[in-house]
């Protein structure tokens, strides 16, 4: 019997290695796997590369992980947020590496990794600082730059519903980066608000098929709040 549902945070985090690349879903605090980030802090892995849309708020979650010195590099589109104090302090002190990526490019790099596409060309960023040092190619009269797939050793996801095969649904704007992070990661770990019996999620309503999911932890986290 396949059962991807794990019973403890320690089981969910087992095997995450120092130096791992972690893809972190969520946009604002909606659909963000806050409990799993706390689990990663507890787990203790360090020298991490973290890809996420933002670079953390206040002193909790991703910001806490950075404040503890566990993050070597952050890949994101918008490091400024309502309260980016930890990131800005580390960045100014030269204690964290930043790779800034346009939001659509980071999304497509993650999607491409999940789809087995190692590289692609995009018009986004042509003629800007983002294009410096990148391969350029003119295709049908328009200039493009090459971008590379962004794989995760680990992907952290928040779902609305999950079953023991790892089929997932998301709620409203909680979908955001979650489906592509699940696709692009070697070890996809999910915290879910609800656990459903196999067959209870209608096949037409599955957003992420279980093939992309490795572990599911039931965390009835409640509504998001605080951006």
């Amino acid at each position, binding site marked *: 019997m396949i059962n991807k549902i794990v019973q403890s945070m320690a089981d969910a985090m087992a095997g995450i290695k120092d130096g791992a690349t972690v893809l972190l879903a969520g946009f*604002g605090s909606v659909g963000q796997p806050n409990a799993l980030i706390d689990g990663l802090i507890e787990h203790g892995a360090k020298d991490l590369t973290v890809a996420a849309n933002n670079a953390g708020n206040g002193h909790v979650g991703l910001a806490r992980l950075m404040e503890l010195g566990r993050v070597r590099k952050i890949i994101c589109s918008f490091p400024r947020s309502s309260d980016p104090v930890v990131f800005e302090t580390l960045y100014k002190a030269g204690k964290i590496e930043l790779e800034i990526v346009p939001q659509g490019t980071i999304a497509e790099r993650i999607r491409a990794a999940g789809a087995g596409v190692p590289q692609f060309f995009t018009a*986004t960023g*042509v003629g*800007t600082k983002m294009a410096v040092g990148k391969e350029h190619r003119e295709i049908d009269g328009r200039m493009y730059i090459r971008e590379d797939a962004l794989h995760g050793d680990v992907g952290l996801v928040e779902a609305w519903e999950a079953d023991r095969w790892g089929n997932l649904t998301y709620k409203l704007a909680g979908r955001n980066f979650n489906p592509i992070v699940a696709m692009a990661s070697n070890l996809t770990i999910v915290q879910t608000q609800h656990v459903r019996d196999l067959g209870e999620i209608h096949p037409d309503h599955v957003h992420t098929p279980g093939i992309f999911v490795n572990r599911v932890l039931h965390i009835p986290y409640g509504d998001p709040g605080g951006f």
Partner: protein
Amino acid sequence: MADFTPFNRVQMAQNAAADIPEGWYVNLGIGIPTLVADHVPLDREVIFHSENGILGMGPAPAKENIEPWLINAGKQYITLRDGGSICHHADSFAMIRGGHLDLCVLGAFQVADNGDIANWATSDNDTAPAVGGAMDLAAGAKRLWVIMDHTTKSGEAKLVTKCSYPLTAQTCVKRVYTNLATLDVTDRGFVVLGMAPGLTLENLQARTEAKLHLPA
């Protein structure tokens, strides 16, 4: 002093809103562009997109009707209109990068008369530069309009011959709505479509670095 009345923020948004026809799919940036949606009547069906997978965004909710799982890219609570839909981030940016949006309206620091736009960083060594979806929107939408003040607070021109700030994208701005004028970006450069009441072309040119043209 010149005797003219600049457009205020609401009028700038109204000027842009009046030019959006029914049926367009539109993404609005933060700041004054966000106000544009308030001036498109609901019976003129314009479908608003937000980068975090929202299509068919409606007006802001009343406080008692907030849905905590429904925000836009500016992280404000929103509503969905009937017919609205949700998708994931890569599909949402496929709408942008795949050329499916009819229009994107952004704010800007500078626009050049060849259509270059600078709107994400004010220096090359900005602390923690943040680009978000601006480069995708500018390069990907079928047309890009900009809403911004005509000059900086200290009076420096923002309509220029060459952007001095880091570029967001090249040659993509089609129209600019400022507090002083509405201008098209054409092969000839900026063409003045309209001006704030009482303003003369001479006065407008004095506040514009790039050369202004009248419609042919």
